[in-house]
């Protein structure tokens, strides 16, 4: 084994450190330690001359370990690692001692601060002895992408990637593209035609030479890791295998069926219909009751199956604005009909939506507010004297009265729920599900389209209810992540990962249970755990769980931390 030669540098940081801490004293103390070849103090280690001194020392004195005592490693660890690389040394043969943020800036007593600094530097020296060279690894990225789901989200993602010149495999379970959007007539708040928007997209996808569309296709199996996935798909009874580097999951949603809500008597009363059923009527331009007559009174009920613990606790996000859209369409088709909009909170939140709400209010529509706390509106068949087909009764919140609304047609704004295939796709791709079967993103705020599995992205309504415009934005965002990975050609993977010593591993699989990234798998043949370095993020939880000590968390190994503790506490000089 080569001789350990350590260089230690104590930074003054101008007066920031030197004012309180006796840097010269530390340098002297450290010099006494075993294996320490050089121990200096310097005004600004991070400055160019500071770094040059470091590089020259490494070269001249054949130093193979470096300790810098300065500011927080969160600020300058990358700087010094680069300097080490410049000097031809592995950047991981380096340790920092934080004597500014966690010493000179927070203490008042010079003596104690200096003693603490000595301890911190000693700990670093003691740790760095056990450092091992680690090499950056990268994996090649297959430039093809698999998009699961042929709705508006999947189509947009596929086009976005294909238009950048990269291969896409678009997998769709049904026999046509377009998903729910293709079934919708108009969109809010500008009353644009959904069909007019999606039809060209479908034909573009079908005719694009870089997009291979798999209709009537189901996924059988997905294997591999970021950059290198492969899958078996079954189309029309035959199995095919495709390989790709990234996956975008856009399995979409399905509408909630209100048959389970007794108050609404859906499928009991023929003139209680769902929003999707109304879409069909609007596309044909005739809104009729079951007996074919023109309805004089139409009610729209919001939050059907949403915001209710019994059905779905979440808000389905788009229904309020969609209901306003229906109110407009119905008003246009039936200028003399009485329209009632029974809502809970009017969640017209998007750009232009509040204005849409205001404009709709002026179209002679009676807005009525209910509160699910006080029970749902109840629909019953009317008597012959009522002059209407049905009666809705509920407690109206804004007037404080119990109200009866005579109606001929009721439209239920049904909730949306995760697609029935979501679970299966989640299992195959390693995505986690939240309580409502929607997919969990890697970070709800800062990484909303990524998942905890690298190379697997989610977009559109499979992540949670959202509008068409929002789904399109998400589809593009997911495409951006894929495109930037493809543009790089390869991805660097975490260096400080976990490593299993196969000889010590007893095959208990505890590590597999605790790994948040599903990075550890089990080798049945050898009866040991195996870490996939492309998936491991280096948190070290497995290392501290392993009962036999077979798992080594690189750069945070047991021996490194233990000797750091030792160094920290073996303070020989108690006074200056």
């Amino acid at each position, binding site marked *: 084994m080569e001789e350990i030669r350590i260089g230690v540098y104590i930074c003054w940081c101008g007066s920031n450190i030197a004012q309180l801490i006796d840097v010269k004293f530390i340098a002297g103390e450290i010099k006494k330690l075993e294996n320490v070849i050089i121990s200096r103090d310097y005004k600004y280690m991070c400055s160019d001359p500071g770094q040059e001194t470091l590089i020259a020392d490494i070269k001249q004195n054949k130093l193979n370990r470096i300790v810098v005592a300065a500011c927080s490693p969160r600020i300058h660890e990358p700087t010094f690692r680069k300097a080490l690389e410049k000097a031809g040394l592995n950047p991981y043969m380096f340790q920092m001692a934080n004597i500014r943020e966690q010493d000179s800036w927070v203490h008042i007593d010079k003596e104690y601060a200096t003693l603490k600094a000595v301890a911190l530097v000693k700990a670093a020296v003691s740790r760095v002895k056990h450092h091992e060279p680690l090499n950056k690894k990268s994996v090649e990225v297959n430039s093809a992408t698999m998009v699961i789901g042929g709705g508006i989200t999947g189509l947009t993602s596929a086009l*976005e990637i294909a238009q950048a010149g990269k291969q896409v495999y678009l997998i769709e379970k049904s026999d046509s593209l377009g998903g729910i959007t293709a079934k919708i007539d108009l969109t809010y708040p500008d009353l644009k035609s959904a069909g007019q928007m999606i039809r060209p997209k479908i034909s573009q996808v079908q005719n694009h030479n870089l997009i291979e569309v798999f209709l009537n296709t189901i996924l059988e199996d997905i294997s591999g890791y970021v950059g290198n996935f492969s899958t078996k798909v079954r189309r029309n009874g035959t199995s095919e295998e495709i390989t790709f580097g990234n996956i975008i999951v856009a399995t979409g949603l399905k509408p909630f069926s209100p048959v389970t809500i007794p108050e609404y008597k859906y499928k009991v009363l023929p003139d209680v219909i769902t929003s999707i059923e109304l879409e069909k009527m609007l596309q044909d331009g005739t809104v009729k009751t079951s007996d074919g007559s023109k309805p004089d009174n139409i009610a729209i009920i919001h939050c059907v199956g949403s915001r209710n613990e019994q059905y779905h606790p*979440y808000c389905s996000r788009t229904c309020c604005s969609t209901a306003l859209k229906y109110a407009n369409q119905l008003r246009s088709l039936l200028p003399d009909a009485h329209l009632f909009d029974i809502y809970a*909170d009017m969640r017209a939140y998007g750009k232009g939506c509040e204005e849409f709400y205001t404009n709709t209010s002026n179209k002679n529509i009676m807005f009525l507010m209910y509160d699910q706390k006080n029970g749902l509106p109840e629909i019953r068949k009317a008597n012959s004297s009522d002059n209407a087909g049905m009666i809705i009764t509920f407690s109206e919140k804004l007037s404080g009265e119990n109200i009866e609304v005579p109606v001929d047609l009721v439209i239920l704004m049904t909730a949306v729920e995760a697609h029935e295939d979501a679970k299966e796709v989640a299992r195959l791709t390693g995505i986690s599900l939240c309580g409502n079967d929607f997919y969990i993103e890697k970070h709800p705020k*800062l990484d909303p389209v990524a998942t905890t599995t690298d190379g697997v992205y989610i977009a559109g309504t499979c992540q949670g209810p959202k509008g068409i415009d929002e789904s399109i934005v998400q589809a593009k965002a997911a495409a951006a992540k894929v*495109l930037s990975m493809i543009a790089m050609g390869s991805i660097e993977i975490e260096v400080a990962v976990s490593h299993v010593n196969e000889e010590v591993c007893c095959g208990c699989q505890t590590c597999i249970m605790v790994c948040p990234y599903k990075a550890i798998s089990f080798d049945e043949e050898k009866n040991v755990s195996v870490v996939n370095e492309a998936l491991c993020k280096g948190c070290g939880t497995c290392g501290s769980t392993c009962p036999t000590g077979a798992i080594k968390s690189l750069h945070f190994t047991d021996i490194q931390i233990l000797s750091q503790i030792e160094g920290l506490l073996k303070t020989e000089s108690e006074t200056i």
Partner: protein
Amino acid sequence: MRKAVKTGIYFSHPVGSQAHTINYRELYKYIKNVPVVTKIWDSTVNPISDEEYFTGEITSKSINRIIIAGYLPGYLKSIFSRFLKKAGEEAENISLVELYEHPLPDVPSTEIAKSKLICAIYDVPYEAAILAEMNPSQSETLVIGGGIAGIQAALDIANSHNKVYLVEKTGTIGGHMAMFDKTFPTLDCAACILTPKMVEVSNHPFIELMTYSEIKKISGIPGNYSVNILQKARRVNVNTCTGCGTCAEKCPGTSKSEFDAGTTMRKAIYMPFPQAVPNKYLIDADSCRYVQNGKCGVCVKNCPVENCINLDEKDKEVEVQVGNIVVATGFKTFNASRMEQYGYGKYPNVLTSLELERLVNAAGPTGGKISFRTQDKKGNWVFTAEGPEPKSVAIIHCVGSRDENYNKYCSRVCCMYSLKLAHLIKEKLPDAEIFEHYIDMRAFGKGYEEFYDRILHEGIHIIRGKTAKIEEHQDKLLLRTEDIEHNRILEQEVEMVILSVGLEPNNETGDLASILGIGLSANGWLQEANSLSNTTETSSGGIFIAGTCQGPKDIPDSVVQASAAASGVIQSIMLKKTEQSMKNISLSTIESKARELSLINGE
């Protein structure tokens, strides 16, 4: 296969002033002679209510396709579906052409109307026809704005190993998000998740960060823009400043801290906040005594680094060449003092939500303690950690939003951040009575309704009713509200009021839009290319928008939009091509492209 098509076009006119922006006579003349156009109707001559007339016309002229053009054409779509169906034609054969959205700067609306119509007549998507020409593109990108949207866009593009210039007008990146304490609905700390991203930006080899800089001029064509950036004098050398802070200790100039939303004072030489990126000091010329009076220089004397502070540094202009531009200039909060009835600025303990964010933050003026503003020895109203804690707090929603007298639009985030603030107050002051006054509780996002439900069970009083006025009454604040749900007038005495201020476009948004040649929407937000299918591109090629400059949105929605904008940029870089600006594409080009792509032919 080519199909024989007979088209009827119906023009629906808007009401009000917009009506006159299009020269209809010219428009009709232009489309009349296109072979597939069989009939043109005008809403002023043929009211839509005349069902018999229309079905008769459709049958007799064997029209099998309808184009509805003009103002809000979708409103009439179902009616024409009915007409077509009655005449025995396919009900879906309807195209909508909205002529009153996306006004392009410098292009007469009649020209745009013509090009949109000709595309519809040939049944070619407008977007496809204007994609006709692409310019060669450079790989560098300019991102304007260093808030979370700008950061995300810059990182996404830079991660594809392409150079990004990130320009930020203040001394640090981070934007509004850095000021927030926690984020809804998960309540994770904003700094914990944002600062790693900020550090990532500063360490990224492909990002050139230009803080304290503004866009002066943009020239060139899509794919090859040349951008003049004004780098305001920081007066502190970013490369040599170690961030030690010695300079600020003796600095005599003070000003309200922007980062703390004015709740604390900072020095004229200052670091915006401890985790600022770059983690360097800068001098605010307005409060610097040397800059104002020519006498001081204390900071120079105290700075341990030689030649680090240069009080005479001048602004300088640099020019960069980029292929694409992402605009992410964000928002400003509504000026609450405009609503005199709430007494903001008059009563010391009526605060804006942004001020409360700082107050509850552990790094804020009181170290995270919620206390009153009290008068110090000099008589200034300040927050101190020693100040008394309020026993009752009211939070008022929709301040400046959903209000015709101020901003008509919904600011989208206020309901949720108000609930979050209520929770944070409850957490710190469990015995305090907390009231929320709302109109509609817009908890629409993922996990938001569940969060609302959680707040409802925390003993916070949620009241439906907008507070009408606040008056000071014996050191307390007297609120008058109608409690709609319980049919009563609430006259509450509380000790602190939080105004949930809405979002407004940043001051520079208008100027920047004209520099970039892109449009503004009705409320001054930046205009997207298409409100439905394309909210990240603009009418100018190679110019993308992301985040709240396009309209109010929360953090996840801003982040997603930023990534989506990045997607367009990366695509352009990979193709080495950028789309043309709409205004630079001539009508004849669009027309010939439409004809070329079309599958339609007249008999």
